[in-house]
């Protein structure tokens, strides 16, 4: 009997889930958000269909406020792997001038991310969308299924979830309904980094410590990635050795002071850390039920 390591078991399970979607859904898409979890998800999708290519495109819902390095990495990754990449921007939101500074994090996330995602899924008629979310990230995610059924309006009903015994996923749905599928459900942050190190998966350089221009705002270090971020009275741009544990819209993502410049450093730092990776995410702190609320509204 070949003894599988913890990571090999997680890898096998994720590949199984990805193939199950390809085999049972009509028009899947991989929601590629450029971060480390997406990098692992994409790597697993490549493996699942080798020597062929994944039978679905990548979709990035661009809020127009992502770090510039993320966008460059996104385009490079799609080109390198020879995959179709769909970039969707909620143009209505752009025209209305929604932005993380003037509109607040909650409205910005709702319009540019949640509504943008729903627009894109409807526009292309995708009936299953892969996401890289993990159950260890947040309490309401810990309760979500691997195949998370969404209504035609993209709503999640936490009280009416289908049981998923063994590895038997009920992939049937009515017309208009869709699935959000989470192949990394059982992975932890540590598993993700261990796997990235083991498989040498390229990730956005923002995860590694470097001198970056940051501003202290709202108790967090915010990187001033472009001129759209106006300085408030008293604020100064400092050059600090920082890195990011998660990546999102740059005005909403706090950097951590760190000297971890390699994967080994990152893994060592994570082991000794006393705060969760989502600590730097401004959108999670709108109240402890807020992720559940956003998911019900159609957020990933």
């Amino acid at each position, binding site marked *: 009997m070949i003894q599988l390591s913890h990571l090999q078991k997680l890898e096998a399970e994720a590949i199984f889930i990805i193939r199950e979607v390809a085999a049972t859904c009509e028009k899947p898409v991989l929601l590629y958000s450029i971060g480390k979890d997406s990098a692992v998800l994409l790597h697993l999708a490549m493996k699942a269909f080798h*020597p062929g290519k994944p039978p679905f495109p990548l979709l990035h819902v661009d809020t127009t406020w992502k770090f510039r390095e993320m966008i460059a990495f996104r385009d490079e990754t799609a080109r390198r792997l020879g995959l179709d990449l769909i970039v969707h921007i909620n143009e209505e939101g752009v025209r209305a001038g929604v932005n993380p500074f003037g509109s607040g994090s909650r409205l910005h996330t709702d319009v540019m991310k949640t509504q943008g995602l729903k627009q894109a899924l409807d526009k292309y008629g995708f009936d299953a969308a892969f996401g890289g979310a993990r159950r260890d990230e947040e309490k309401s995610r810990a309760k979500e299924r691997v195949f998370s059924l969404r209504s035609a309006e993209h709503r999640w009903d936490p009280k009416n979830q289908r049981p998923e015994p063994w590895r038997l996923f009920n992939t049937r749905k009515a017309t208009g309904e869709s699935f959000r599928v989470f192949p990394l459900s059982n992975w932890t942050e540590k598993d993700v980094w261990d796997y990235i190190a083991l498989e040498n998966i390229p990730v956005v350089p923002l995860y590694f410590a470097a001198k970056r221009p940051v501003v202290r705002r709202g108790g967090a270090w915010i990187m001033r990635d472009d001129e759209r971020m106006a300085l408030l009275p008293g604020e100064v741009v400092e050059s600090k050795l920082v890195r990011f544990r998660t990546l999102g819209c740059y005005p909403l993502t706090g950097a951590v002071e760190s000297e971890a410049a390699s994967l080994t450093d990152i893994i060592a730092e994570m082991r000794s850390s006393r705060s969760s990776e989502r600590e730097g995410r401004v959108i999670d702190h709108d109240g402890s039920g807020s992720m559940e609320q956003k998911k019900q509204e159609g957020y990933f």
Partner: protein
Amino acid sequence: MGALAETRGAPAPVGAQRPANDEGQNVEGSARALLRFITCGSVDDGKSTLIGRILYEAGAVFDDQLGALEADSRKFGTQGAAPDFALLVDGLVAEREQGITIDVAYRYFSTEARSFIVADTPGHEQYTRNMATGASTADLAIILVDARKGLLPQTRRHSFIVSLVGVRQIVVAVNKMDLVGYDEAVFRQIEHDYRAMAAGLGFSSIDFIPVSARDGENVTQASRLTPWYRGSALLPFLEAVTIAAEAREEAGFALPVQWVNRPDLDFRGYAGMVAQGRLRVGDGVAILPSGRRSSIARVLAPSGEVSQASAGQSVTITFADEVDASRGDVIASLADAPSVRQELQARLLWTGEAALREGAEFILKLATATANASVTQLQHRLDVESFAEVPADSLPMNAIGQVTLRLDRPLAVHDYSRNRELGGFILIERLSNQTVAFGFVEGVQPARLGARTAEQELSLPLRLRRAMASGVGRPGSAQRRAFASGLSWRAGSSLALAGATIALGASGGLAATLAVGDFVLRPLAHRAHKRLWRRPGAGDLQDGAGI
């Protein structure tokens, strides 16, 4: 391996170029052995509190989460000013409002000794299906019993379901010992009662630990308040326990086909997760339910091309010849193969809101196969109080019953006790698409597939092609050329015979008859003559001769 190589960074060794990917498969890796366990018990037994306490003590709760916990405890908590650890796991707003667990929550933590995945499952009978879901992937179950209340109907129900889904190792955590003054007599009585109740459930081990989840006694370290208890505290126990199932190597392999991988005309692979056993390149296989035969040419694992794969690995295999398989088929070894059945005897855990009645029809999903299934007979229902089988004409929600199912096509199955992947199934209600039952196949023995069955089960056109190939050889082969040359020689000699007959003055009809007769009869006479002189020997036995 182009695509795979490209997904890796430059310094990584590339799958196909690595001489032996097999080497990489045997390493346990840096990760520690994983233990998946569930906690179950009746409402208010303190399951979520216990899990929250373990997470907290194991250092799996971060400072920012603790900050949120303190805020939540003031708002929803049931512990006054102290942090309410249940709020760490009860993640849904409805759960926090009602102070109960509705849905199964999976939590991940690790200690120096081991990684854990824990499924915290609801106590309410109404949410039994969520409890069964958590149990279906667990290696071990912690059953909580409230020291003040002793065994409750839910204790019996949960113990039975845990046994039904195949969990064999049980830890009974007698909780709230603080509320009975850490009285040994209370603990021993519960131990005695539980052993008596669980006698027929087939557990391989049952351990009892007195705890107070709220105060953290006997959770991560031995309590000084229970000097009469000699065993380990709960977490050290879980770190040390060995899982019996992992050591077992099952005979026979089975790979349910999940996805047919045809990127181009040159490659046709069959992808899926190995459900049991070990398969190797060169192994003879049967494709079930059809029974067609082939052998394995290549095995592609996530690490690259390998020579073998075993249970739990997601692989893609190719066959040595042009046989066809599709999603839902099972690629199996000839010995200890799944049985092909169109009628199933099964236990059902009914999770539908409307009761099950005989004659109802569903979509059945087993491994990667789906079929239409009708419940032709409902034999009995299980009384959870007495574990007795009672006659029933319907199964209400959360009931367990014995049924006969008729399928619209044959499927390859194992007995659930032998293999969960090929013995466990779900029933789906066609209109609502809801999962209405978990099923457990019973009364099936593994099949031994002989060579004869293979030939019999081949389709007629394929049999003709095979017969043709064995008589006249495949195109381009030496046998085919010899056949063609013999054919032209015989045709020539028959024409010569016809010419000679006409030259001797016979009619054209007679000449044609003689020529055709010569063409057909002479080879037959030749074969009969050859057979007469051939000595029988072992080498002459044909495939399918019955050995």
